[in-house]
């Protein structure tokens, strides 16, 4: 099983779906951000698997770039959180209605 591409893709798909589900249903903004990271995990796994099985470095490179993007996303997201806590102290996405305060 470990020698087949689709087993990795399957795990990646599950992780991606779970992440997407989390983004959809969770109310707490930080869990939404964590779910996005979970989606990226699924994608990373698929990309790595593609790269390994197609003997190509493109997937690995994309994983590296997605790591960078995940870091950037986390940093900006958490900075927004800090700003949120300073201004409205509210972390439920369905209660955050104004784009500007």
């Amino acid at each position, binding site marked *: 099983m470990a020698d087949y591409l689709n087993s990795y893709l399957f795990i990646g798909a599950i992780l991606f779906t779970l992440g997407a589900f989390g983004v959809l249903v969770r109310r707490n903004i930080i869990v939404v951000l964590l779910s996005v990271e979970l989606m990226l995990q699924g994608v990373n796994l698929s990309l790595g698997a593609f790269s390994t099985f197609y003997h190509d470095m493109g997937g690995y490179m994309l994983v590296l770039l997605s790591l960078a993007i995940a870091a950037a996303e986390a940093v900006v997201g958490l900075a927004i959180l*800090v700003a949120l806590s300073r201004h409205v102290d509210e972390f439920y996405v369905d209660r955050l209605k104004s784009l500007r305060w």
Partner: protein
Amino acid sequence: MSDLACTWLGLMATIFGLGTVLLRSPVHSALSLVMVVFHVAGLFVLMGAGFLAALQVIVYAGAIIVLFLFTMMLLNLEQHDNEPHMHRYQKWLGFPLGGALLIEATWIALAQANPSETLLGKYSPERLSELGGTAFGIADAMFTSYLLPFEVAGVLLLAASVAALSLARKPDEDIMKAMPDMVSDAAGSMTQPSVQESKLNQSPTERGDNH
């Protein structure tokens, strides 16, 4: 052996992924995401990309999720016990949509048989071991065909750090003073320039007069 490992890692990753999404406390969510990261790293090792696995752990587990935990502790983002942690209606929409996505993705994944010889790239395992490992392969690719994305990623990180700095910076107190009405109108629960802060701005001698 490796089949077993793959199944086990995948299973555990799924379980912890479920934990990330379903656990009530954000801290528990974050910690199960750490476990997902470990298991995905394990899968990377299984497919022979130890370099990626190490990077995965260093960047995700060592930096990003610690940052999440750090923020959670800093801001006390504890979920209130009496509040539902999922959307009331979106939840029922989420299950079918998530299920549909899973079926779709699984279908695509299962449709992927192993690639035929014609589609293979130039970094075969033999060539990689000749270069010295995955790390060398990645370096080889990164500084030749993927140089531009690599540089762009650097710029992106710089932009992100600048953005984070400017977002998380303390609001400028002069602005707060100049526009007190706007500040207090915007949100009732908002932190106003409190008495303590304004006291700190005084010169030491002025503060000394309190005694």
